């Protein structure tokens, strides 16, 4: 199946394109749109974006592989990022991560068998005053206790 943006996202893209002087400038938002739809940035998507923006495939691939927020392979339905940078680490991020690994039965960087959750570590998510913290999909959960982590994981693995 060949990839194409949904009609609604296509409209968003047009709006994005109208903001910039060059098409190249829209590379990152365009990749986000694609990832939103497809879950991850495949080679096919890189080619699609390159073609639509008149860029080389190599350039788009370079952008997609540089930013950690672009998934380079299929990911779970939900994504859990545990911040591990110093302030969070001091607040016990290690334990949070270990707990997640145990609960989900996977290591950081992996996806559960049933495809529900991908667990990742993140560098500072700019919520240092309220560590340990994690991001689940688009939401922040701060001042975490392991019990709270359990609740969150219950929800995403349901």
């Amino acid at each position, binding site marked *: 199946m060949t990839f194409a943006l949904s009609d609604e996202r296509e409209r968003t893209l047009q709006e994005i394109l109208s903001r910039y002087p060059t098409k*190249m400038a829209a590379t990152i938002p365009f990749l986000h749109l694609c990832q939103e739809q497809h879950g991850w940035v495949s080679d096919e998507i890189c080619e699609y974006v390159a073609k639509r923006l008149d860029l*080389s495939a*190599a350039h788009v*691939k*370079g952008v997609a*592989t540089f930013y950690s927020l672009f998934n380079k392979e299929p990911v779970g339905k939900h994504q859990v990022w545990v911040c591990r940078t110093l302030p969070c680490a001091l607040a016990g991020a290690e334990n949070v991560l270990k707990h997640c690994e145990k609960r989900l039965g996977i290591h950081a960087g992996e996806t559960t068998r049933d495809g529900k959750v991908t667990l990742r570590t993140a560098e500072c998510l700019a919520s240092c005053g309220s560590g340990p913290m994690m991001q689940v999909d688009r939401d922040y959960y701060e001042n975490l206790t392991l019990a709270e982590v359990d609740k969150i994981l219950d929800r995403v693995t349901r």
Partner: protein
Amino acid sequence: MPRGKQDRYSSRVGEKLFPVSKPVTLTIDGKTVSAKPGSTIWDAAREAGIDIPVLCHSPRLDPVGVCRMCVVDIGGRVLAASCVRPCEEGMNVVTKSEKVERHRSMLTELLMSDQPETCPKESTTGDSELAALARAYNVDGSRLPRGAARSSDTSSKVIAVNHQACILCDRCVRGCDDIQHNDVIGRTGKGYTTQIGFDLNQPMGQSSCVSCGECLAVCPTGALVNKPISLPIVPRKSLKQVDSVCPYCGVGCSLTYNVDESKNRIVYTDGRPSPVNHSRLCVKGRYGWDYAQHEQRLTHPLIRKSEYYPRGPLSPEVTSSRGGEHRKGSHLVRYEDVLPAFRQASWDEALDLVATRLKGIRDTFGPGSLAGFGSAKCSNEEAYVFQKLVRAVFGTNNVDHCTRLCHASSVAALLEGIGSGAVTNTFAGIEDADVALLIGTNTTANHPVAATFFKQAAARGTKLIVIDPRRPDVANYAHQYVRLRNSTDVAFYNAMLHVIIAENLVNEAYIKEYTSGFDALKAEVQKWSPEVAEPICGVPAETIREVARIYGKAKSAITFWGMGISQHTHGTDNARCLIALCLVTGNCGRPGTGLHPLRGQNNVQGASDAGLIPMMYPDYQRVTNPEVRARFEKAWGVPLDPNAGLTVTEITKGALEGRIKGMYCLGENPFLSDPNVNKVRKALSALDFLVVQDIFLTETAEFADVILPATSYLEKLGTYTNTDRRVQIGRPALKPPGEARLDWEIVSEISTRMGYPMKYQSPAEIFNELVSMTHEYRGLTYEVLGSTGRLWPAPDPAADDGLQILFDDGFPTPNRRGKMVPAAFEPPRETPDENYPFVLNTGRVLEHWHTGTMTRRSYALNAIAPEALIEVHPEDAMKLGVHNGDRVVVTSRRGSITLAVTVTTRTHEGSVFIPFHFREAAANVLTIDEIDPFGKIPEFKFCAVRVERAPESSAAAAE
């Protein structure tokens, strides 16, 4: 918007970074320096003779400033990167100080710590820039922890990648994107795992890389290096450098061969700075030279044994490619089939035999029974002596060469229209153009380095309008690509002219001052409204209008065309339309304007200039003009034939009909290059006597009575004239094998033995004689040509490069006006029908040349493109039930071949494309030998064929 049109690293970045308009004065290392506006500190220092080391910068590239090797002290808090730092008034720059040197040394050490144990460049060409810095600073990185091994990639046939040696300087990315505009290389990943990546981070050999080698030419480390072709690669300084010119296409790139004299081998090639190619090369120039060292070179004269008469082909008919798995040598003439028919002879015996037989035929049947085929691969000197032999000694004008098969119609139209067959502007002239028409040219494959200039122009804002029934890759860079139906050019261009005239986009002053025939043209194109043309050419009327307006309104527009225009039975009419477009809009004689038929062979311009054509002496002087003839008779001391001679296609016909009895083929292989080869076969068999002079046994040589071993391009001195009219010297890099002799010497020997002594001592002497018989080459000598040659005409060749732009004030026609010749639309000769439903279009691929005699004996080129493929549109493939790699039988009314399919939208529905280089699937078995009435060029671009699955392929599928 075409790719590259966006300001990525386009050269305008420099201007934007440094918007200074006045020169500035600054001090560098105590020296007062005046820097050109916009120059960087590095540029200014270089100008002043001060060297600042660089890694990520190269004067051929726009600076990016990522490595920090070039830092200098400008008195600020931190050091400044000189390659990106603009000069400022009053700046005080120190390029060498303890602080600066410490910084550079530390940086080198850091970079060295991650280098592989053996640098792939130090162990080959020996000129890694990073290794040189490491030696200078006496650091090897061993004090620092070494990084984990990164991978290497040897998937390309010609380039080896070692990611561990890469310092991510970005030079190769810019070389690929901004110099060659192939856009293959990028960076992938982040942090320590970052590496250069090809396309979607594929192995190089599977990416869209076209193996031009620009990346390794700019790489400062061992990350990208050549793989060896003929011998292990050794340091440049241990080899002899021979400055020469590429032997393949009409671009005529300057290059340097690095030669191991003791082994008589070229080891590798570098591009050379010159106005032609700015050091760029394509895969043929960089990797296609080892053919000369092939074991199959002819080394002794050969005479056909008496038991092998009557003459005929010696190898079994090959009409099928082996689907990728070649039997050894099946893609070449099989020597074991052919050689037994010949015996080795001494030069004396062979030359005497040739002279006696040719003389005998001439004296018995008259001069008109002899003919000569020269070659556009030969030098100007060889072309000159060869046509002199045919004219002065054979006594006939039956002398022609492969120009007949490529641009004869363009030249006919140009001579008629503007009085000169040469280009009016160089290909690099595109840089001044607002609009460029690229018509019937697959430039990236056939004139690759010229294509880099086109792509670069597009990136800087020139609108490329690409018109071609088969979508060429250069269309990726176009403002607009127009796909018209095969062979409907006249309808399309007449409609463009219609719009330009109807909407008054004409240049009236120019028409009045410099042209004739406007009223007749107007009357013809009146009938061609876009609505009339649309159903014929398949281009929407609105698109025709749009293109006409873009061209008509352009301040400067230049037109390039290739064989898509010329190789038709109405090729001359096609070219007439393009000339008319140029004349009505006054797009000639100014920067960014002109007419440029892209010449195919390296010396098709020069061979024609030197008179290797049946109706003209050197410099396009008509043989039928008594005054001209008298001049040549006087110079050559013999009476000359007053009638124009026969062309290539007419000579073949003459041989079939028994009118041509003896023939001399110098470096030409009509068996594969001419249309309808089965007919050529019969014609060659019908001759009384055929002498072939070549470097290998060609398909044509199988029919020969005598075969003379010639020298290859790489073994001789001579001048060659490129598509721009640039006359350049090709210099010998190798010694010829065995008893092979120089071509001009062989011709002179035959002439002398036929009773007309030719006693030339050197190519220079021949060149001087040629120059003395022409107007346009006047002033040129070997000394003047030097290392980068001269454009003809060169009014003051000692002082300048020659004229880039011709005809700024009238044309070399009797009334000084350019003539517009209306063209009436005519359909091609053989249109598809029930039995032959497809249109066959033929052409070339990037890696091969003409009949493949050279390129298929080049290791790299043959390895990259080993097989003939027929291009079929996906819809047609579905109907035929064929997939990529399946084998099909293609049949026309003249013959049939079998080859593998590649399914692609490059060709459109109902049309297939086959490259003509491959003898085992020779496209010219199928092509039609109908010719254009004026240019006498065959219709290679259009005939009707049938395509069917090959029986064996269905069997294979059933397994």
